[in-house]
């Protein structure tokens, strides 16, 4: 089975998809799952790969594991843009999976999984008990050593510690409630068989209207130029454009995607220009060239106009 066949989008895929992309179809494709219409990344490795290799930044939307009750820093999952998803899927770097029903396996394999889970839990208990015992021993040992060094003459105390250490092995109690368990973030990914994988590969519910198309082409072009992009709803634009990783750099531009033939009321123009100057960013009006089927060379070209708020002195 060929990977491309499992991706409904790539078959009728549009512009800018060149041969090298097709060859690069990665075997370790990133898994994107759809929650509602939101594309989410769950595995830390996927998130890292997307940022480091494909410049996909996205937005973390879950509670942070180490401090869940705050909004300053969030944790997995990572929500990415529709355009990012489309580009990743079209270039074969990711597979979009429809979300799975909970009990797709049959009863037997379910029972097996439950058994496996219980066995793992039991094993983990034993191992953690051993580790806890070791730790306790080490503490007592240290106390004993200190006592030996400090008071050469005080045999009684040292003897007491030694006795405790000896009977620790028998009396040591590691309560069940102290067992540490993991609450998995990503689906405990029992790997799908290829058939299952193909089945789950999402039928892409991508809006393919004019606006989505314009946004996508602008996204692709800006990414190709090496910018990092995030959503810019709160700035009234389509994308925030960063010169480097958004973790370290301020955004320079607010990109507004505007089809070439569309007219923008001057009010809207003033509003966005004013806003841009207030947040010290430049507003970019991005309009992709109209393409007809035979004009391959102009395809993907985007015209950028920047707005500067200036007064005459």
């Amino acid at each position, binding site marked *: 089975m060929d990977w491309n066949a499992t991706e409904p989008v790539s078959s009728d895929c549009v512009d800018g998809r060149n041969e090298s992309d097709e060859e690069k179809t990665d075997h370790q494709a990133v898994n994107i799952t759809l929650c509602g219409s939101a594309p989410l990344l769950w595995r830390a*490795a996927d998130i890292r790969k997307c940022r480091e290799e494909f410049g996909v930044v996205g937005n973390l939307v879950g*509670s942070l594991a180490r401090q*869940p009750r705050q909004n300053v820093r969030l944790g997995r999952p990572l929500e990415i843009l529709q355009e990012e998803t489309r580009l990743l899927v079209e270039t074969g770097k990711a597979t979009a999976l429809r979300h799975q029903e*909970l009990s797709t396996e049959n009863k037997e394999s379910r029972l097996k999984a439950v058994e496996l889970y219980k066995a793992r839990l039991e094993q983990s208990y034993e191992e953690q008990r051993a580790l806890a015992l070791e730790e306790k021993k080490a503490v007592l040992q240290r106390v004993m050593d200190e006592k030996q060094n400090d008071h050469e003459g005080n045999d009684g105390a040292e003897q007491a510690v030694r006795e405790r250490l000896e009977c620790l092995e028998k009396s040591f109690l590691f309560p069940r409630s102290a067992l540490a368990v993991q609450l998995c973030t990503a689906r405990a990914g029992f790997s799908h068989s290829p058939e299952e994988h193909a089945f789950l590969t999402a039928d892409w519910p991508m809006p393919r209207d004019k606006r989505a198309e314009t946004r996508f082409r602008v996204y692709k072009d800006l990414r190709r130029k090496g910018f990092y992009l995030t959503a810019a709803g709160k700035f009234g634009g389509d994308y925030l454009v960063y010169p480097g990783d958004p973790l370290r750099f301020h955004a320079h531009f607010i990109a507004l995607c505007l089809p070439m033939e569309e007219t923008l009321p001057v009010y809207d123009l003033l509003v966005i220009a004013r806003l841009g100057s207030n947040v010290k960013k430049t507003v970019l009006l991005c309009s992709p060239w109209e393409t007809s089927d035979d004009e391959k060379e102009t395809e993907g070209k985007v015209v950028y106009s920047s707005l500067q708020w200036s007064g005459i002195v």
Partner: protein
Amino acid sequence: MATNAIQSEPVRIDFCDELLSSSKLFQSRSRSHKIPVRGQKEFLPNDSERQKARLQKILDEHWTTVTEERVERVGNLVNAEWIPEKKIVTLQSRAGKFWQTMGFSDGGKQCLYPEEALYLMECGNVQVFYQDLPLSIQEGYESFLSAETVTYLQYQVFGHLKRLGYVVNRYNNRLCNKKSTASSEVSTGRHTGENKTNVQYSSLNYPGQIYRQIFQGKIPRSEPDSDGAPGRHWWTNITSKPQPDLFQPSVRCWDFSCIIFPDLGSHGADSACLPPPDPSLLPGALQVQECHMAHWCRNIDLQQEHSSKQTHSQNGRLCNINDDRMVHQCKNWDEYLKLVEERKSQQHNNRPTHLWKKEVLPLAYSRKCSSNRFYFILYDFCLLPPRLPDPEQWRIDFNLYQPDPEFKKSNPGKPSTRLCVCSFDGVVPDLRALQQLSFQSGDVPMTFAVVDHGDISFYSFKDFKLPTDVY
């Protein structure tokens, strides 16, 4: 086929990566809970070593916090089970502190709504099982969040506010009709005089329904009329008209024919004095004299009343509805609708039967075409969407309460605000929707939570009345 064989391999490795070993689990009890700070951002990348090193440091910290898995002691976890049929989560061990503000009891069982369970999973307080296997957070998102429960967008707002410490409840407790759970109270005082109505929101889907229920006389009075005084008067000297049998109210229903309000506006009210109210309706020893209306009448702006009367008489067809005897005989809204339906069918009977009694019908009949003809024809054929906006599109999603150690689920009090969740991709609510929601919300302010790819902004619209000088 070869590619697939390779494909399944790495997935397995990833799976092992994210599952922690016993020693890792054991070590994690002493792990840091600090959030690393990120300094000031820079403006331009300049490829300097210093910049690269700082970026790397921050990225490393970022990946540490993002990769970290939740590890909890069994003793600190509440176990629960996901019931997909009911779309709820039932607790299997004693609830924790969260029970003060979340969850409900159903048939003696402690339950959580899916959004509550998911939030508590994310906080590391609850472990939810399904068929004896624990669910991951991902599975929680994928199974719990749906249009029937709470959508992904709504959950984002819910989680955001919960993380800030607010108490957040569903506005419309659809899944449970138990009286034990928090029932919202709405005051419809604005529309029904001074009467306050308790409405179980579980039984209402949208505001339109509330009116309908009033018309059908389904809403119980807030004060039980134990005295059995079905038609008490508000003003003493106005005798109640003998009621026609048709108007005999059912036991628990307002009878507007007996509750008579003084008409201050019309000039026909010749008496300059308003008689004192029925003393039995007044508290204690309160003495109320006759009220001289002349002073008040001067302050009433009668202009609107005049003009509306004029317009009414101009297109008399509209205001005649209330003079229609048939309409008068309708006891409630349903009967009125039935009447309208009957009349319509009578009109249909006037049509030539050879055209209208067969399977194939004409596209439109002439009267319908007279106004707006194209729209209606197209609308009839479902080529155009109905003009009225979907009342379900805008609805209140959550009640929000300030964090309060004294909070009681059974008596949550008045919410500090109500929330409607929408998306940046969607449309902006029109004035009609805004008004409808704020009416539905009563005297509690409405806040719109707008979600943009994980960023949440809150907006609210404030009514503002220009002050006018009454005297």
